[in-house]
């Protein structure tokens, strides 16, 4: 039995003339939290969207739990236990908070939706995350930026996924709510079987919660260290270096 | 509906009557063909001191809408109904219902299918659509003996004109002559119709006959015949229906040979008269079948149609006395 939950080799992705990913190789072990950092437009979200079955890579292999797979769709990836928080949140403005929270994994008592149960659980989950939403029946269109993000995060974090891909899950979260979500991720890690890839631009948070950090640059992974072996200064230096130099 | 609200005064030798209200159910309510019909029905009502009859039904020959309008009129307890029975099965029940409710019903302009009126209406006033189409074909057969003949129809399947083209086709079939007959769809939009006829003419320069069964297509056929000077080439006959200005111009200029006038004014005037007689005589005077006939307008008699505008042809609302003189053409 392998300890690698997800492994990718030589992933490449082009959008017309633009090459977003050249040759990405990375892996995340069972129960590990991997931090993925990089400049804006480095290709982090593109990589995540490949791993969750949304984009098809132009080259490269994806290996889930030791078996090579071709991800046909988001649904397919999900059936393999891979779940995602997208940077754009993937919320349906027209639906209520709790329907968004259970989107495509609705609780049903055939043929109807179990709205009552979903409502209750949605309220519980949001409370756990410290996010104050008076009424889970309102449309998400009316919520604040942070409230919206909380819903997207709750949707995945409370699924029973074995690999979680979190694309900037804390970008819009307040200090308190952000801390609570990090606690939640730590909880998941502690329970062992969930692997997480988390993208964040706040390196303090990255070092706080991640076991290992990868840097994506020029379409490749150029840096791979355990969190304990690096520091805020090193990461900042690494990323900001290019800009400080000519300045 | 309100028999108590009597008319202010009696008309002629007739007794004072309530202001009876009749309803006309039509299949193409906004079609210019029926503009004179509406004048006819209004004029008869004015003459008799009745309320202006209601003109309703469907705009695009949707039978269900006509049935709805008929039922609504029955609910409204109108005093008489005139229906264009464009479908032999659809109006049976509504007409019976009206008769049961004591509302006299006549049909006008269309009366079920050939040999089957389809309803128990008291009488029919008009000239069959199918028959008029047949006449269109027969007249063309006087000049055409062979070759390609095309007939244009704006909206195939529409019940105001489809029977005409069917009748026309039958006339050619019955003649046994070596003529290929093609029916071609134009468009509800007259301007698109013109382009379509134009295209057909370009593709078929050797046509020997060009017919049309609706007002728009008829005038457009004339314009196209003129544009490509088809009369001096192979086109032996061109004709169609109705008397809109551009068609009359075509006849006068010789690009069209004839157009058929179905005397729509009478189809409005007579039903009102008949329904009135039925009501005023307590049902003793039952409406009688009336064939309003066909009138071929040709180069010989187009003059007055062009120079005078009249209510009777629909070209104006003005009340006019159209003078005429000289002998009346006869056989």
């Amino acid at each position, binding site marked *: 039995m392998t300890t690698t939950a997800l492994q990718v080799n030589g992933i490449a992705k082009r959008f017309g003339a633009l090459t977003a990913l050249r040759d990405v190789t990375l892996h995340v072990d069972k129960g590990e939290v991997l931090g993925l950092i990089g400049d804006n437009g480095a290709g982090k979200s593109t990589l995540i969207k490949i791993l969750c079955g949304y984009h098809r890579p132009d080259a490269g292999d994806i290996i889930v739990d030791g078996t090579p797979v071709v991800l046909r769709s988001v649904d397919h990836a999900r059936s393999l236990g891979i779940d995602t928080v997208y940077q754009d949140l993937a919320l349906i403005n027209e*639906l209520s908070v709790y329907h968004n929270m259970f989107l495509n994994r609705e609780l049903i008592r055939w043929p109807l939706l179990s709205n009552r149960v979903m409502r209750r659980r949605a309220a519980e989950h949001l409370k756990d995350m410290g996010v104050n939403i008076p009424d889970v029946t309102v449309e998400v269109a009316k919520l604040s930026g942070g409230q919206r993000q909380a819903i997207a995060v709750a949707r995945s974090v409370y699924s029973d996924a074995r690999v979680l891909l979190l694309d900037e899950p804390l970008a819009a979260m307040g200090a308190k709510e952000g801390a609570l979500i990090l606690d939640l991720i730590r909880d998941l890690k502690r329970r062992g079987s969930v692997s997480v890839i988390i993208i964040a631009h706040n390196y303090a948070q990255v070092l706080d919660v991640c076991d290992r950090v990868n840097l994506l640059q020029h379409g490749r992974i150029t840096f791979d260290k355990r969190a304990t072996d690096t520091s805020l200064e090193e990461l900042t230096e690494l990323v900001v270096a290019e800009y400080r130099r000519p300045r | 509906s309100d028999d108590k609200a009597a008319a202010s005064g009696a008309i002629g030798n007739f007794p004072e009557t309530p202001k009876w209200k009749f309803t006309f159910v039509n299949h193409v309510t906004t079609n210019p063909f029926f503009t004179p019909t509406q004048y006819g029905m209004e004029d008869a009502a004015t003459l008799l001191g009745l309320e202006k009859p209601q003109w309703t039904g469907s705009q695009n020959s949707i*039978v269900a809408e006509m*049935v709805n*309008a008929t039922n*609504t009129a029955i609910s409204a307890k109108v005093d008489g109904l005139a229906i264009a029975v464009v*479908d032999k099965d659809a109006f049976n029940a509504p007409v019976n219902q009206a008769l049961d409710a004591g509302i006299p019903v006549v049909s006008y302009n269309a009366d079920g299918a050939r040999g089957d009126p389809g309803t128990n209406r008291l009488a029919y006033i008009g000239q069959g659509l199918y028959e008029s189409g047949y006449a269109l074909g027969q007249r063309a057969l006087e000049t055409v003996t062979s070759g390609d003949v095309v007939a244009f129809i704006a909206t*195939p399947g529409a019940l105001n004109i489809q029977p005409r083209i069917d009748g026309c086709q039958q006339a050619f079939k019955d003649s046994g002559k070596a003529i290929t007959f093609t029916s071609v769809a134009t468009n509800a939009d007259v301007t698109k119709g013109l382009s379509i006829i134009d295209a057909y003419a370009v593709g078929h320069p050797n046509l020997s006959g060009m017919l049309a069964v609706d007002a728009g297509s008829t005038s457009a056929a004339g314009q196209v015949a003129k544009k490509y000077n088809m009369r001096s080439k192979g086109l032996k006959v061109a004709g169609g229906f109705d008397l809109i200005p551009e068609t009359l111009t075509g006849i006068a200029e010789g690009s069209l040979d004839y157009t058929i006038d179905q005397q729509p004014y009478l189809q409005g005037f007579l039903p009102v008269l008949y329904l009135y007689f039925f009501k005023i005589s307590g049902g003793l005077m039952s409406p009688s079948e009336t064939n309003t006939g066909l009138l071929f307008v040709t180069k010989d008699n187009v003059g007055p149609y062009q120079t005078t505008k009249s209510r009777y042809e629909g070209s104006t609302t003005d009340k006019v006395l159209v003078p005429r003189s000289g002998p009346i053409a006869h056989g």
Partner: protein
Amino acid sequence: MARFADAFLRRREASVLLVALGLMVYFRAVSDVFLTKDNLINIAQATAPTAIVAVGIVLLLVSGEIDLSVGIVAAFAPFLLHFAIDFYNVPALLAFVIALAIAAFIGLINGLIVTKLHVASFVVTLGTFFAVQGLLLITSHAYPVPIPESMKGRFQTWIGAGPWASIIWALIIVAIFHVVLTRTRWGLHTISVGGNPVGATEAGIRASRIKIGNFMITSALGGLVGIMEAARINTIDPNIGGGTTLTFYAISAAVIGGTALAGGSGTVAGAFLGALVLAELQNGFNLIGYSANTIYLILGLAILASMIANQYLSRLRRAGRT
């Protein structure tokens, strides 16, 4: 009582319902036959076909698509029934099922071209509109036929000829699909696919399946309406549905009822009320006795007035809650 009123006003359909009721009061005031049983039957029969087609249209609009061909499918279906019964001796009920299945198949084709070949549904269904119209005219020779003998009697009455038959069908269908749209996964995914196509796909929803399904539902409902109307008017007419007229009315009913053309939001019950409003206007002004030319002016102004009132009411409603 106040709570009940509140719960009512929270519903999106409340304002159109008030408009429909307002029209009833108005027409009853000007014509005392408006609310007679006979006339209510008239209104019911005029409401039903539009409402049923509007159900499908709502599903499609909500999922971000449109179907122009449904009206011509309505005209085609009763002919299919007629062919099956009179040419192939199929029993009436089976023929009915076959006709609906073929109607649904046309929806399937629409759906496949839209989702797999990525052609805009407006042009796809414009294409199938013409193609089916051609088939219809060729096979029917553009001429009406009588209802087949084996359809007469109980079947014809139940399917549409009975005074209340069509409205009962309409109410059942509206009730079912109202539940489908608001309380099932299918409905939720329909809204998602129309509201945020990218987001719905990211969430793993299979947009194609939802859309194809809704095209099929719409076409089948169109077929049903055609057969129902043929039974009611007792003739199989190639012009049932009037080409695009029925579709047009159904879209109007949907939009009046509160469905957005842009996708993502709509209500089936509202579309029913929209159809009712249209039928009331048409019937009421006819009852009063307006003639064709005038009635369009009146009808147009009445539509504008009703919809402005509708908008005003629903703004009042929204102001009262979050």
